[in-house]
Structure formats: structure tokens, C-alpha cells
């Protein structure tokens, strides 16, 4: 089956905004042309494989600062970036899992099931994400004056 790129874009935007709003109570919006699209030197990179119906990968990249505020919002306590790295990655993994489900539910007809793999997160230096996976599509979002990049590869 084929999925149109425009459908992915629309559904991706809806899925990421729904997920962050429901889980972290954060308003996430697609960036405008005026928003600066500059990635930090290092950031969290989270991805989840999709096995069915189309082998693909999706996820997001965000700064430590925004990962910290998301984790604090969800876990309801202060977070230290270094000491709580495992907890932050667990939060980001769960967000990617929910986002993937929200995206595929929108893209696929009800009678077609999909299969997700296990999510993974890591801390990367700029450009390192391309070592084993270069995103095909990247969507730039903004929340609280900061950026989140949604990524997809089919």
C-alpha cells in the first residue's frame, strides 16, 4: 500500500500535537517560516520502528531543556538531566510510542492493523543521527519558544 506524503504530513502534525498535549500538557505547533530552525549542539533523539504495514521509522529530536520540562511535567517532580537520564529516555520512548500509534491510526483504515517495534532514545551530538539513519522527512515544531523536530523515514 502507499501513503501520500501530504497525508503523512497532516497526520504527523496532528499526532505530535495530540500526544504532547495529552501527556505533557504542552501546546506544540508547527513552526512558521519566521521561527529559527537551528538544532542545538547536542540533543535527545528518539525513534520507533514500524514493521507493518510499511517498514518505516519515526520519532523526534529535542533539546535537553525541553526533554527536561516534558519529563518534569509527566513525572511530576524535579528532573536532573544527568542523574535522571534513564527516566527522561523512558518518557521520550513512551511519547514516541503513543505518537506512532496516533499517527498510524490516522493514516490507516480501521480494518488494517499495524505493528510497532520497541522505541529507543539516545543523546546525540549534531549530525550523529545520520550515522545509521537519515530522516526522509523532518517537521519543525515549536513549543514554549523551543523546537522539536518530528522525523519520518519509510
Amino acid at each position, binding site marked *: 500500500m502507499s501513503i501520500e506524503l501530504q497525508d503523512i504530513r497532516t497526520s504527523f502534525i496532528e499526532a505530535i500535537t495530540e500526544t504532547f498535549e495529552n501527556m505533557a500538557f504542552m501546546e506544540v505547533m508547527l513552526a512558521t517560516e519566521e521561527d529559527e530552525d537551528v538544532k542545538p549542539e547536542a540533543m535527545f533523539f528518539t525513534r520507533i520502528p514500524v514493521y507493518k504495514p510499511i517498514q518505516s521509522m519515526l520519532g523526534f529530536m529535542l533539546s535537553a531543556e525541553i526533554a527536561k520540562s516534558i519529563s518534569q511535567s509527566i513525572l511530576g517532580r524535579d528532573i536532573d538531566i544527568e542523574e535522571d537520564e534513564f527516566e527522561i529516555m523512558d518518557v521520550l520512548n513512551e511519547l514516541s510510542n503513543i505518537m506512532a500509534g*496516533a499517527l498510524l491510526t490516522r493514516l490507516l483504515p480501521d480494518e488494517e492493523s499495524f505493528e510497532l*517495534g520497541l522505541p529507543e532514545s539516545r543523546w546525540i551530538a549534531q549530525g550523529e543521527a545520520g550515522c545509521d539513519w537519515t530522516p526522509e522527512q523532518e517537521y519543525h515544531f515549536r513549543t514554549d519558544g523551543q523546537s522539536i523536530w518530528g522525523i519520518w523515514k519509510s
Partner: protein
Amino acid sequence: MRIVIADDSTTARMFIRQCLEIAGWPEAEYAEAANGREALQLLKQGTTDLLLTDLNMPTMDGRELVRRVTASPKLIGMPVVVITSSGNEARKQELIRLGANAVLRKPINPMKIAECLEGILGVEEET
């Protein structure tokens, strides 16, 4: 009331538990498992009133857990709710056929879980 929550994500387990507490089960005894195998071990230890499980877990996934739970004479009649991000209609029907009582799509919230459990348990919440 004893509730077992199975999910490989500690964040998800915490979130589900918080939803249950807000939804009206703050006094329940909660036991948590990171996969289906751990959940089965917990289910063997005493009487459990409700199992909430994720689908996509390492070691033993939620589908296998539901299959084993519904095939076990000891666990017969125990309500099973699957909470998953892969909760479209096709997957829901498959899990219901396997024996799950309900399938909820993530993200959940206290209202969603309360409505589901009131229907399954046939009672109002504890508080």
C-alpha cells in the same frame, strides 16, 4: 482490590496508576510488571481483580499474556484490559477474540479509564 499493571515503560505504568487513582481506585493494591512474563508471575501470587496490560513489550508481549491468562483455569473470569498505542479497530477485535475485556488506545486519561472499568467491573469506583 489488587490491580496488576504490565508495561515495559515505567512512565506508562506510573501514568496508568495515576489515572486509576484519580478515577476512583486510590486504595487499590498495585503491582507492576515490565513484561508479560513478570505479569504472569505476579498473577500467580494471590488473587488479582484486574489486569491492565500494554501490547508491545519485550520478553512476552501483551497478546501472549492475554492468551495465557484467558487459558488459565486459575485466572478465569479476571478482567483484562489492554492499553496500547496500537489500538485501532482491527487490533481491538483481535484482542477481544483472544479474551481481553476491553482495549483502550493510548493516551489514556482518568475519565476514559473510569468509563471502561465501570463497565467491566460493573461497580462504581471505590470513593
